[in-house]
């Protein structure tokens, strides 16, 4: 092995380029490449290239093609222009699914955005047993989501002896129909989803709170600020970046919600919990007549487009004060 021409040389940018120089490398013969260890580098890169190529880059490209094709696995795919998009946009269920998904996302923000922040701020002030606090908060995240949904489905039993209805009964409320009623089904789903996910957000906030510059608290105290004003004027502004990230992550996550409506209610009652991803699933896999793969990819691309625009807008709006 020729030491100087190993590919590793390029990894020490601090050192001046060695005698062979970058200019000479630009015109390398395949033999140089081989002698430089190019082949072993390629072999080591192969798992990444193959796995990403076949299971990520190729399907992403394929999604773009499929959205303008009619694909049914039997005949050769046929280009149909924007027919798939037109089909999806004319589906009477689309409006319902979009409204439900927005409703889910909104409820998830109301339930799941301020609470973890408040909990994390309070927990950051804990002097003893902080580990216990974070472990308890994170515990639901570790429960397999399917188990969590099936367990909560039992908790939501609409009869008077259901778990939640028993608890509600202690304070003279209920029994509530929970999942059985079109108006309470979605909030019930969101409640479980928030329980399952809030711990992760708490931990992210806690990690960010460690980085808050504490000398500013002293400055605020000199100016006579109380606890609330310290939180509002010192803590929260320094968390802006993280608050922005969790908001985006939450919107992207909730707009693709599937497990809860699929397992809790199957989209019911009366399509009250039919979400966009459930509609995509129904298009592609729900029918015994064969999948409408074109419509499914068309809808998923539209969703991805909306998400991209949303994050771009949000990023633009918040950029002036995010750094």
């Amino acid at each position, binding site marked *: 092995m020729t030491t100087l021409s190993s590919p590793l040389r390029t990894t020490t940018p601090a050192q001046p380029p060695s005698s062979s120089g970058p200019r000479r490398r630009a015109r390398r013969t395949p033999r140089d490449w081989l002698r430089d260890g190019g082949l072993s580098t390629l072999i080591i890169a192969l798992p990444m290239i193959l796995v990403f190529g076949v299971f990520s880059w190729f399907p992403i490209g394929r999604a773009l093609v499929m959205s303008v094709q009619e694909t049914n696995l039997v005949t050769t795919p046929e280009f149909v222009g924007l027919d798939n998009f037109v089909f999806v946009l004319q589906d009477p269920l689309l409006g319902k699914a979009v409204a439900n998904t927005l409703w889910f996302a909104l409820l998830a923000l109301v339930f799941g955005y301020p609470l973890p922040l408040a909990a994390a701020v309070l927990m950051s002030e804990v002097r003893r047993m902080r580990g216990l606090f974070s472990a308890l908060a994170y515990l639901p995240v570790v429960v397999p989501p399917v188990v969590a949904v099936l367990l909560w489905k039992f908790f939501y039993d609409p009869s008077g002896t259901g778990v939640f209805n028993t608890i509600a009964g202690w304070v003279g409320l209920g029994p509530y129909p929970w999942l059985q009623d079109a108006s309470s089904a979605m909030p019930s789903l969101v409640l479980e989803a928030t329980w399952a996910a809030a711990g992760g957000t708490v931990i992210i906030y806690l*990690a960010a709170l460690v980085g808050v510059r504490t000398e500013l608290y002293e400055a605020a105290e000199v100016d006579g600020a109380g606890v609330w004003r310290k939180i509002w004027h010192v803590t929260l502004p320094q968390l802006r970046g993280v608050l922005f990230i969790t908001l985006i992550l939450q919107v992207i996550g909730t707009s693709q919600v599937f497990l809860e409506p699929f397992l809790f209610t199957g989209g019911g009652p009366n399509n009250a919990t039919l979400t966009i991803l459930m509609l995509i699933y129904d298009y592609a896999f729900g029918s015994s007549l064969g999948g409408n793969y074109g419509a499914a990819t068309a809808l998923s691309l539209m969703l991805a487009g909306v998400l991209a625009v949303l994050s771009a807008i949000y990023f633009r709006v918040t950029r002036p004060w995010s750094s």
Partner: protein
Amino acid sequence: MAANNRTTALARRRTEPAVERGIVSSHDRRRPSVRGSLGALQGGLLVTLVLVGLGPILWLAKAAVTPTQDTLREPLGLFPTGVDWANLSTAWSRAEIDHYFVNTLIVAVGAWFFQLLVATTGGYVLSVLRPRYGNVIFGLVLATLFVPSVVLLVPLYLTILDVPIVHVSLLNTFWAVWLPMGASAFNVLLVKRFFDGLPREIFEAARVDGAGPFRLLWSIVLPMSKPILGVVSVFAVIAAWKDYLWPLLVLPDPENQPLSVRLPAIAPYLELDVFLAALAISTVLPIALFLAFQRLFLSGAGLGGAVKG
């Protein structure tokens, strides 16, 4: 003398760094009213966390060994007619939870292996070897971070039915779950960033000593990277344990399905107490992993925010 003073000051700061302050100043903390309300708030938070975070899990543990009738009639009672340990063994063997448990393990171990393989070799190539095509590949890998997974659902399913180039179907094989999970840009990014922080001099020294790229990866880079490998491993296993929709699609044969897919399917056919025992059994391993590697989990979860930012 001055230097000596400074060292003692440094030493003192090093021995008592615990008095880092938070929102409430140490002076305020000594005031009884502040102390009281802060303590009450934190006590309330602790009680809430125990009830909300631990409560449902404890309830599941209780219900797993309670007869059906008791759970139905008095869901919040504590063993009104005694403990029924047989639920667990019934669920384990008669409901074939053992079989699906093994399937889940196979899925998790394979997904762990491929995620680790792709992330370490990929991170090594992008961070240490840096071929000229490296930047292009890194760009393409990063780009997949911005494609929501919903876009992949259908085309990836069709890819599994007919893998390009080799033209085989991976349907009903574990490969269909393992390989796509390996394509995690997040893992590659995480590992690459860690490798970026390793001291280059050690690589140079190893290279001078005649270590080739494989040897360098195996004997130098990987042993130095245990923390990040731990984080990636824990998340790989947990993600595989959690996954539902994807294995549901690509493992239609119940023989190969993991717990997450089987549990909803067998729910209508099991007696309630056995079903709840099955749920409890499915939860034991992830929770045990969490309790054993708590620090890893929590630092990894915090990392999620840091890296994506």
